[in-house]
Structure formats: C-alpha cells, structure tokens
C-alpha cells in the first residue's frame, strides 16, 4: 500500500479510536471512583457485571479501541524518538495489539461470565 495512504489511515484510526476512548475513559473513571468510594467488595462488583450485556459490550468496545490506539501511539514514539522504522517495528506492534485484544477480552469475559 502507498505509504502516504497508509499513514493517513493510521492517523484516522488513531483519532477515531481516541474519540471512542474519550467516552470510555470518562465512564471508566466514574466507575472506578464510584466503586472505590462505595468500598464495593469483589462479590458486589461481580454482581453488577455478571450476565450484564451492556457492561460486556462497553468493555469489548473499550478493549478494541485500546488495541487500535496504543500500538499506533507507540509507533509514533518509536519513529520520532528512537528513529525506529520498518517492518520489524510494525510486526512487533501488531503482535502487541493482538496481545492487548487477547488479555483484554479475557479480563472482560471474566467480568461477564
């Protein structure tokens, strides 16, 4: 694929995932503060999340947006600060994205099931 086109697509993916994450992070922060302030126990947290399709959908979207956003951000840091370009860098970052999806969805499934 043409480099400029690929860079434009990555830029757009970074911004689109950032917009989704902007909402997800605010909801996540409110949830963290609510759970911490209420001193919720593990059982109380799981009682709210287990079998709850809304929380499952929310965290699936959150994890997928993270898996898009983080590797693209790391790619910019690798290029600009380390001068590291090329297929090896991109391959490692794709592998990192796959790890984020797998462990993230694993944790999400634990909340739901």
């Amino acid at each position, binding site marked *: 694929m043409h480099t400029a086109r690929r860079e434009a697509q990555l830029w757009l993916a970074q*911004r689109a995932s950032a917009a989704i994450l902007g909402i997800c992070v605010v909801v996540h922060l409110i949830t963290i503060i609510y759970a911490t302030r209420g001193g919720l*126990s593990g059982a109380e947290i799981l009682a709210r999340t287990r079998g709850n399709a809304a929380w499952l959908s929310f965290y699936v979207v959150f994890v997928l947006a993270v898996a898009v956003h983080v590797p693209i951000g790391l790619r910019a840091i690798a290029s600009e600060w380390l001068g590291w370009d090329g297929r090896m860098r991109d391959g490692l970052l794709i592998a990192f994205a796959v790890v984020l999806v797998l462990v993230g969805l*694993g944790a999400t499934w634990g909340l739901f099931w």
Partner: protein
Amino acid sequence: MRANIAQARHYPTRRRPAYVAFIVHRLSGLALALFLPVHFWALGRALTAEAELEGFLRWTDSPAVKAAEWVLVLLLAAHAGGGLRLLALEFLPWRDWQRSLLAVAAAFSVVVGLAFALAL
C-alpha cells in the same frame, strides 16, 4: 495573534505550554501502554473466582498500591484530557476559546485526581 507572537518570542520552545502538554501527553501515554497488558492480565487472573478477586482487592488496600493507583488514574485523566484537547484543536473550526483548552485539560486531570484521592 500579536500576543501569540510576542509570547512565542518570550518562551524558549521547550518551555512553551503547548510543548509541555505534548510531553505530558506522550509520557502518560507511554506509561499507560506499559501498564495496560499487566492490568488486563492481573484482572483476568483475579476474575477467575470471587475469592480471587476479593484477595486482589485486599492487596490493593496497601498504601503503596493505593499511591500507584492514584498515579495511574492521574496519568489516565491527563492523557484523556490532553487527547480531547487535541481532537478539539484538529477537528473543530478554530475559535478563541480553544486557547483555554490547555487549562481545561489540566483542570480535568486535577479534578479527577482529587476525586479519586478523596474516594480512596
């Protein structure tokens, strides 16, 4: 505009607020990127059973872990606030109020940091 030029002349590049915002955004993003896989993995393990999660939550009661949690929440708020500022700068037509976004992003981080500290 004239004020901006005067300000740009006054501050060396690396001390300009926008550059500081860039560095905060980048370093907070890097720290969060390193933390996330560990966070997901630990949560995934803790969620295998209620008792495991209870043990994990008790572990997070220690002062050192609470301090680390607070730093992470602050980093998350700083990165989110800085990111929303960038989205507004890049996608909304330029208006004078956007100059205040840097202060709004910083205030957002402080408010979230304080709210979490008070909830701890």
